[in-house]
């Protein structure tokens, strides 16, 4: 009996300890392995519009950012470095951001994006299940979302998850 109680106690401690290591903010996205939602949005810097269908046949990254977003600052240098490697096209979704602020932000911290598109009222963000900027999607040649990074991309995530995934998808 006593041994049983001790075992039960440690099992409970182990269960709760595992629970503590998990991040409740990371809600698994139901969009993984689903086609990336279509949209047609104006570009941020230049004239013209963009829709994800134009990226068919390419593996690409779709990064949701905003100038008001604090963790985007943290992630930005990593994206700038990534863009230099030209590993895959990186397209930005400027989420609920005044245009001037967004342009100023890019001028100040560097622009790693091929281009960014403007989601002024956050509607496309909702279609992509965005709930905390920054978020980053890896989209395959067929236009299917294969990975979603919730929160900033770290060098670790980039090296261990995103880049290997791009390699796998391009094979």
């Amino acid at each position: 009996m006593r041994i049983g109680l001790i075992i039960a106690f440690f099992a409970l401690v182990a269960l709760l300890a595992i629970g503590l290591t998990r991040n409740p903010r990371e809600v698994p996205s139901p969009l993984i392995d689903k086609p990336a939602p279509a949209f047609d949005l104006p570009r941020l810097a230049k004239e013209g519009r963009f829709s994800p269908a134009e990226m068919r046949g390419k593996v690409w990254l779709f990064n949701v950012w905003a100038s008001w977003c604090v963790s985007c600052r943290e992630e930005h240098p990593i994206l700038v470095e990534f863009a230099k490697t030209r590993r895959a096209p990186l397209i930005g979704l400027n989420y609920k951001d005044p245009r001037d602020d967004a342009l100023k932000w890019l001028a100040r911290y560097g622009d790693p994006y091929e281009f960014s598109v403007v989601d002024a009222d956050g509607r496309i963000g909702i279609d992509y299940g965005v709930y905390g900027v920054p978020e980053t999607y890896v989209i395959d040649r067929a236009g299917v979302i294969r990975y979603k990074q919730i929160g900033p991309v770290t060098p670790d995530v980039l090296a261990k998850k995103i880049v290997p995934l791009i390699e796998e998808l391009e094979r």
Partner: protein
Amino acid sequence: MNLRGWWLAAVLLPLAVLAREAPPVAADEQVEQRLVRISEELRCLVCQNESLAASRAELALDLKREVRELIKAGKTDDEIRDFLVKRYGDFVLYRPPLKESTLALWLGPFALLVGGVAVAAVFIRRRRAAQQASLSAEDERRADALLRGEDRT
């Protein structure tokens, strides 16, 4: 009215003119009521322990705007919930559906209850057995005697 009363009236009267009735929150009362009913059962993803109805987070306001438009477009409650589940997963529902991934969530509390009752039953049974064993025939005789108030030795 004395002088003080006049003063008070002079100060308060312009305020009364300025005061207006609070404008209705939304033109369509019915839409708002349905919005509240639906969003009370939805979780805000930003402040996860708050319902969508209660949350003032930016995303919550955007999602309520979306829900409001779906209501106006004549969607049913199920269709609206489905819209959000497709984008954010079952996590947005305070009553997630019963399926493989939510089995532990739905049945876990009952499993714990059954386990707890079983442990309690074993514990109680053992204690009872221990109590019964502690009275020998001699003890019983003495206890009877004490109860009857006879022998005090």
